[in-house]
């Protein structure tokens, strides 16, 4: 029977990067809207063509206003202002005049709209970096109006009145800034790896996600799917029985996890503080709920995304203080602005074309070119920490050598910050960690970038997922070198990459000498439970076995064989 496909065809497989199950109808993020061909002419009825063009612009404006009202309802005033400004652009009288004039010359409506926007695009782009973000806004309106006129799907994250499974080729931070977390039950992407933006966002939100999933963008809009973010599967048209069984399995694991509470420690009482990765005050509640002992990575660039100008010193201070106040007895490790590569900031453009942005001016390299931005951020941090009982530690991203570490430590001291540290994510920094340890008070290993750079495998490329694996023995070697150098100097060395949230790898990292683990808040209970089931000696033996293995897969298998408690947790 043609409508009875084989069971295998009704299940797609990818990489599960955020555990849990979610079921709902698919909403696909459409690809780019095509450019209407140059020279496209209308049939001769200029009046009707003009009316169609203006109606499309008006519909786009009305839609933007409706979204602005919804943003305002949830207290997102920045979003409201951006969307209202976009609505004004769609209704711009100068733009309407230009469209009408082109249609009067015989140009088809869609092409006329495209060209009229082009004129303003050049005007704004030529007005300097300050307007860079507005050019993107303008392109978005143009694409929406052209999509209406051509009858093709709207670009960007779709609107929906019911919770849905978001399917996309890949997601950029700009796409997800407008997401309503309550409406997304799962993410599925064609590209991306375990450390892509989608994966990190999903774990922070506690929403299941499957990435690098071939065929997912061909699922018809509205099709019901069941996503298992641990197994990495997407079942198409699941039965109610299958959805129930998947949810029961998740609930059973949750029951085990509820019994794991208190500070992180191995079975024999070796303390390993368990900390949360946060992007701002909005993530604090989940961190506290999952028992975080503090914050191990505060990604401050998330305060700056989608901003034409940096937040004021007072606004920054407020955002830092809110997180410090949540952990009066704990520590909060703040990472200074990590811009560049996959997280460009409108007010900190790269100095020139970068064919390979992951190797370009990002992290501390970029901040050294903008000492005013660095000084303002450090000053705001120092003021936020004054009077707080939390211990503030501040670290720089993308540090390569001891000279850079010394520069950052001095910048911190100048700002009145007592505990400067550095991220270890460049292999050169890991290999010469003993030199860096003399300059700063602590290390935090960023396993995502360390893996990307050690294996020369771009985090954005789904096809290289097998090389973006922190179980690669070379990555484990680099972690061991950095942790040993820190121990020799009497300095703590944490891990704040996604590796720390993998229960098996967390045990191995502790065995390698890592002194604290920071992760997306939903990963904390499982890691706490895994550590509590193994002694420090077991962790060390698992770490030795993993380093003796010749491949990532063998490292994983040989470590797991020495960590019997994982099976009790259903891992």
């Amino acid at each position, binding site marked *: 029977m043609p409508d009875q496909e084989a069971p295998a065809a009704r299940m797609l497989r990818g990489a599960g990067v955020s555990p849990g199950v979610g079921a709902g109808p698919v909403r696909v993020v459409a690809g780019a809207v095509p450019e209407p061909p140059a020279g496209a002419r209308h049939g001769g009825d200029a009046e009707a063509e003009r009316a169609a063009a203006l109606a499309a612009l008006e519909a786009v404006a009305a839609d933007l206003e409706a979204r602005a009202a919804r943003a305002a309802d949830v207290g997102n005033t920045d979003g409201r*202002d951006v969307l*209202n*400004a976009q609505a*004004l*652009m769609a209704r*711009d*009288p*100068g*733009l309407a005049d230009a469209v009408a004039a082109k249609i009067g010359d015989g140009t088809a409506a869609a092409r006329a709209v495209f060209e009229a926007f082009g004129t*303003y695009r050049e*005007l*704004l782009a030529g*007005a*300097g970096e*300050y*307007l860079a973000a*507005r050019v993107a806004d*303008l392109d978005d309106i143009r694409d929406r109006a052209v999509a209406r006129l051509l009858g093709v799907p709207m670009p960007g994250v779709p609107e929906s009145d019911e919770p849905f499974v978001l399917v996309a080729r890949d997601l950029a931070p700009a796409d997800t800034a407008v997401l309503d977390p309550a409406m997304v039950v799962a993410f599925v992407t064609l590209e991306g790896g375990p450390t892509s933006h989608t994966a990190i966002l999903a774990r922070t939100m506690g929403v299941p996600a499957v990435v690098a999933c071939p065929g997912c963008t061909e699922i018809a809009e509205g099709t019901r799917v069941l996503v298992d973010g641990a197994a990495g599967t997407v079942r198409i048209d699941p039965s109610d029985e299958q959805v129930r069984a998947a949810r029961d399995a998740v609930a059973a694991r949750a029951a085990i996890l509820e019994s794991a509470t208190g500070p992180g420690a191995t079975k024999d009482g070796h303390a390993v503080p368990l900390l949360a990765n946060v992007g701002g005050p909005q993530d604090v509640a989940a961190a506290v709920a999952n028992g975080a002992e503090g914050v191990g990575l505060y990604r401050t660039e998330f305060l700056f995304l989608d901003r*034409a*100008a940096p937040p004021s010193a007072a606004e920054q201070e407020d955002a830092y203080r809110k997180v410090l106040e949540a952990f009066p007895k704990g520590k909060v490790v703040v990472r200074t602005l990590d811009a560049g590569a996959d997280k460009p900031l409108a007010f900190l453009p790269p100095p020139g074309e970068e064919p390979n942005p992951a190797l370009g001016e990002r992290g501390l390299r970029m901040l050294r070119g903008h000492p005013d931005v660095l000084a303002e951020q450090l000053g705001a941090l120092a003021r936020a920490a004054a009077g707080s009982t939390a211990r503030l530690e501040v670290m720089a991203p993308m540090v390569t050598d001891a000279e850079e570490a010394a520069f950052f430590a001095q910048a911190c001291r100048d700002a009145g910050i007592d505990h400067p540290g550095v991220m270890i994510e460049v292999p050169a920094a890991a290999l010469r960690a003993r030199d860096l340890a003399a300059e700063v008070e602590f290390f935090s290993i960023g396993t995502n970038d360390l893996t990307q750079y050690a294996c020369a495998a771009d985090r954005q490329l789904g096809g290289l997922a097998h090389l973006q694996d922190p179980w690669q023995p070379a990555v484990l070697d680099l972690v061991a070198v950095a942790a040993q150098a820190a121990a020799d100097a009497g300095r703590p060395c944490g891990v704040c990459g996604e590796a720390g949230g993998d229960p098996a790898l967390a045990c191995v990292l502790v065995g390698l000498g890592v002194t604290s683990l920071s992760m997306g808040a939903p990963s904390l209970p499982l890691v706490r439970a895994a550590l509590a089931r193994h002694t420090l000696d077991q962790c060390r033996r698992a770490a030795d076995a993993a380093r003796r293995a010749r491949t990532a897969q063998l490292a994983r298998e040989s470590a797991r064989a020495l960590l019997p408690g994982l099976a009790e947790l259903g891992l």
Partner: protein
Amino acid sequence: MSQRNVKIEAKVGLHARPAALFVQIAAKADFDVTVAKPGGEPVNAKSILAVLGLDARHGEEVVIRAEGEGAEELLDKLEALLKQPEPESA
């Protein structure tokens, strides 16, 4: 023809929220309203794209002009807006 020279006190300049409010006020007039940098080409103050394209920043001066019944009152409102460091509403 009524005319004002106004120094922009809005911290973000004639961009973002101040620009949107400026255009919304101007659009309420049934006569022409223009804004220009001193000595520069005047642009339609009802066009957000033209106003943003001016790229008038904090501390810079702009010339706003209007002609018609109620022009003075309108210019009062626009001037008051530009004088606010962080305007909240129109």
